[in-house]
């Protein structure tokens, strides 16, 4: 039997170790930078595409004081949430609330057809008042999701400070049907919010929510996304999310990769990026403690003679440190710098041997993810056959690499892709689609937790998984 929780635990450990054993990082900073090529030794005398990975890991030091948070909990209380869902959501919100202290700011917004700012942004000083306000929520009505998030953003904006973790947590089980309600529009809102340093974490409940809407909003605003099929799992997911939020090390992270003369940036895998000539800019909203966030750049490298070496790019990271001392400007701007270079050889063996497994793994994950996305698009347009073929090819691709790398994460991806390819028929599609989106988003966002409860993996041991995640 396939045990998701154990595997995830494994992955997280691996990722952590990889992050900790970073080869070269500059400065004893709270954020560790590691930039490297998938294969630092490349074949000589040939124009080729190569992958560059910029990896950022937050460091949690002993005695660290967490940064204060500024959270808006946006809770869907439309008719479909009535019963267990709303109760569990309330419980989860209350549990989350209890983990905050007087430096934190919280607001609670509920929406059905209209929006209610239940608790305007306020310091968490009197928890009991807030809890009783949350307890009074009851479900009924339509879903004005856009309005809810907008009001949430408005509340967060009241205390928008660079040294706070500014976040909206949206819990919904439905489709948006009042106000702007297309994934593009919600994504647009996410893109705009991230410019202000506000991320939206979306938690989809049940099987009826619009996963494109929820994931786009989360991805574009660099928030987390989780899909909770059973309301009972909500508290756990909320716990993870709060764990993330409370562990934020750096915010407003700008990754600037400047390619050297002759090197052409092709694209950034799985992330929004701005490529201008030889300069690539990627914005990450935050770096969590002991979690790796990375940027994968595909570059075109010109032919270089055997034995030669070439500087590929220089990487600059600018970020707002959360735990560092405040300067006059309010927050400190951190800067990390690293140069990436490659050597060239005629020997294919030495090139293969030089392969950085960690970077390559990220590349494979991203490519497999893109294939998975393509399959979803195909299935959406009714091309079930092609979609299945696409997924099967993906499984083969992943299996080939899995033999080489022996990676547990690749095994998870293989298993998921296999399951997806088997569950494309109409009666299972709704759930499979959510699973695919969730998987895609999990890989893309490089988020620590994944809430997917696959049908076949219902024997997941919650406690074990939680243990693994907490690590």
């Amino acid at each position: 039997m396939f045990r998701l929780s154990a595997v995830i635990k494994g992955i997280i450990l691996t990722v952590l170790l990889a992050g900790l054993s970073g080869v070269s990082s500059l400065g004893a900073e709270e954020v560790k930078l590691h930039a490297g090529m998938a294969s630092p030794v490349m074949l000589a005398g040939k124009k080729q595409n190569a992958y560059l990975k910029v990896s950022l890991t937050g460091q949690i030091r002993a005695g660290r004081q967490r940064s204060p948070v500024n959270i808006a909990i946006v809770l869907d209380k439309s008719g479909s949430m009535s019963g267990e869902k709303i109760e569990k959501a309330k419980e989860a919100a209350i549990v989350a609330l209890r983990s905050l202290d007087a430096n934190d700011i919280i607001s609670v917004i509920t929406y059905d057809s209209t929006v209610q700012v239940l608790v305007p942004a306020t310091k968490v000083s009197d928890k009991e008042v807030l809890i009783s306000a949350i307890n009074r929520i009851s479900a009924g009505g339509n879903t004005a999701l856009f309005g809810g998030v907008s009001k949430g953003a408005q509340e967060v904006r009241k205390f928008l400070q660079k040294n706070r973790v500014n976040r909206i947590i949206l819990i919904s089980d439905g489709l948006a049907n009042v106000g702007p309600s297309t994934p593009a529009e919600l994504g647009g809102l996410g893109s705009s919010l991230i410019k202000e340093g506000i991320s939206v974490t979306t938690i989809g409940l049940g099987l009826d929510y619009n996963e494109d809407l929820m994931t786009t909003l989360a991805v574009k605003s660099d928030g987390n996304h989780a899909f909770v099929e059973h309301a009972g799992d909500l508290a756990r997911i909320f716990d993870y999310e709060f764990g993330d939020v409370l562990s934020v090390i750096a915010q407003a992270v700008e990754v600037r990769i400047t390619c050297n003369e002759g090197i052409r940036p092709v694209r950034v895998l799985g992330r929004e990026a701005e490529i201008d000539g030889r300069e690539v800019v990627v914005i990450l909203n935050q770096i969590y403690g002991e979690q790796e966030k990375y940027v994968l750049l595909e570059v075109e490298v010109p032919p270089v003679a055997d034995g030669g070496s070439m500087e590929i790019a220089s990487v600059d990271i600018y970020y707002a440190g959360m735990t560092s001392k405040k300067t006059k400007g309010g927050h400190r701007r951190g800067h990390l710098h690293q140069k990436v270079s490659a050597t060239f050889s005629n020997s294919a063996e030495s090139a293969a041997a030089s392969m950085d497994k960690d970077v390559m793994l990220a590349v494979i994950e991203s490519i497999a993810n893109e294939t998975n996305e393509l399959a979803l698009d195909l299935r959406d347009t009714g091309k079930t056959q092609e979609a299945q073929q696409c997924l099967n090819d993906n499984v083969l691709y992943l299996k080939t690499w899995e033999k080489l790398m022996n990676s547990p994460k690749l095994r998870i991806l293989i298993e998921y892709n296999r399951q997806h390819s088997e569950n494309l028929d109409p009666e299972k599609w709704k759930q499979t689609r959510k699973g695919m989106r969730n998987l895609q988003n999990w890989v893309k966002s490089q988020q620590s937790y994944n809430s997917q409860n696959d049908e076949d993996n219902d024997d997941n041991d919650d406690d074990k998984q939680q243990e693994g995640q907490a690590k």
Partner: protein
Amino acid sequence: MKPRLFIIFLLIVLMPLALLAWMGRRMVRDEREIVRHQFENLLESQLRDIDTLIMKFLQERERHLQDITDRIYSDMEKSSIRALIRKESIISQAFVMDPKGRLVYPDQTGALNNNEKAFLDRSRQIWMNKELLHLPVAEQDISQVEEFEPQQAISYSRNDEQIAQVQNKPVQQVSIPQNMNILISQGRGWYLWYWGRGIHLLYWQKDAYGSVIGAELDRVRLISDIIGELPDTSPGKSSFAESLITLTDSKGSVIYQWGAYEPPENATPKVSYPLSHPLQSWKLNYHISHGEMEAVINRGLWFNLFSGLAAVGLALVGLAFYFYRESSREIRQATQRVNFVNQVSHELKTPLTNIRMYAELLENELDEEQGRGRNHLDVIVTESQRLSRLIANVLTFARKKKSQLTIRKTPGVIDDTMQMIIDGFQPTLKAKGITICFDGNAAGSVLFDPDILAQIVGNLINNVEKYATGSGELKIATGQEGGSTKITIADQGPGIPEGQQGKIFQPFYRLSNKLTDGIAGTGIGLTISRELAKKHGGDLRLIHADKGACFQLVLDTPTSENKPGG
């Protein structure tokens, strides 16, 4: 008496109330229309306030955008513009256009990022038509500016009709530059176009050479921020419990709504209000539940009407009660007086009877010769007879009131009784200069009440004695026909004036003229006489006579089988 009084008082209270209520209802109906109108005005003014709120917000955005475009003008490096766009959350893209209408940024010939591609895609029509070049900032505008004093500025306000008519044309403000170091703005304003899901807003500034620098507001973000500005559905925030305000876009779909009311599908709003430029295709709609609206409209009106009615009703009831109390007290007092008189009369009756009896006995015992004494005795007898009649009248009146009047018919001859009565009056009448001429034609034995006959005729003769002194002959005639007896009593006195003939039978009515002045009377004699006559199955009438008063008494006197005294 009591129920009638009650009905009268009820009428006094209810009639004016009903009238007032009816008038009030009509007034309320008219008033309702006015109030409904005022109410709709109120709703509209609330929507106008919201519009003002949104426009204020847009003005802030305008200032922000002006700052952004100024900054672009000061540094037109591509990377700087890109960095600015990355940082500014409210805009989705910016552009720089040279005076010939060529885009300098984003440069279509160079490498574009996704954002820029998408922007060029959705704004293609603008660049193709070079619409921004033809913005209403012509050279003459600039020359106009120069003609004015430096402090003054030409500004076409939002409400300028010309501008409002041309929907797609931006509002322009031509103003004197405030900062010479930055953009020398020869025009600025909103430009709007429709693409994809709705309206896109672009803010532009034009420099002296005709270059246009602009920034596009992020459409979704704009909506989100406007939502942020608008109220939410917290209890107590809206003026009316069951109302909903919606903001709809150009397609009529709801962007945002607030209020604790779910209008039925496709319900038309009570009031709609389009937003001001540049969002004139958006509308604010006020939905309010019918019940709530009626309640609000009626609240004041019916309350006023009902409170008015209640006040008037209360006043009327108070007044009626006061009158009722007054009148009932008077009635009670009158009754007490009547009772008192009755009792006194009753008490007087027995001693008077004794006085009469003994006086008459004494009269019989006295010799004819004892003239003086006999004359005195006559006076006593007649005066006591008069007094008996008076008392009889009072008692009869009292009995009539109590409906205790009874008739006891006995067989007898009318003429005999008449003769007896006349004999009783002879001495006094003689003294007053009246001679009785009796023409008796009722000698048949009939059934009648001699006491009542005596009372009636006595009253009539008494009146003659009182009011027709010295009038000469008093004609009394009797006649019988069938079962009734007719008695006519005609004097030669002053008679009764025409106008008052109808009233003489009313109780306590006394003719007021020289004749009656100084003559005592109770005013109930004729009343009682007529009542008694009616009780006896007949009537007492005043009939026409050439001179004096002529009364005709008719009595029902069935023929008696037994001979009287037989």
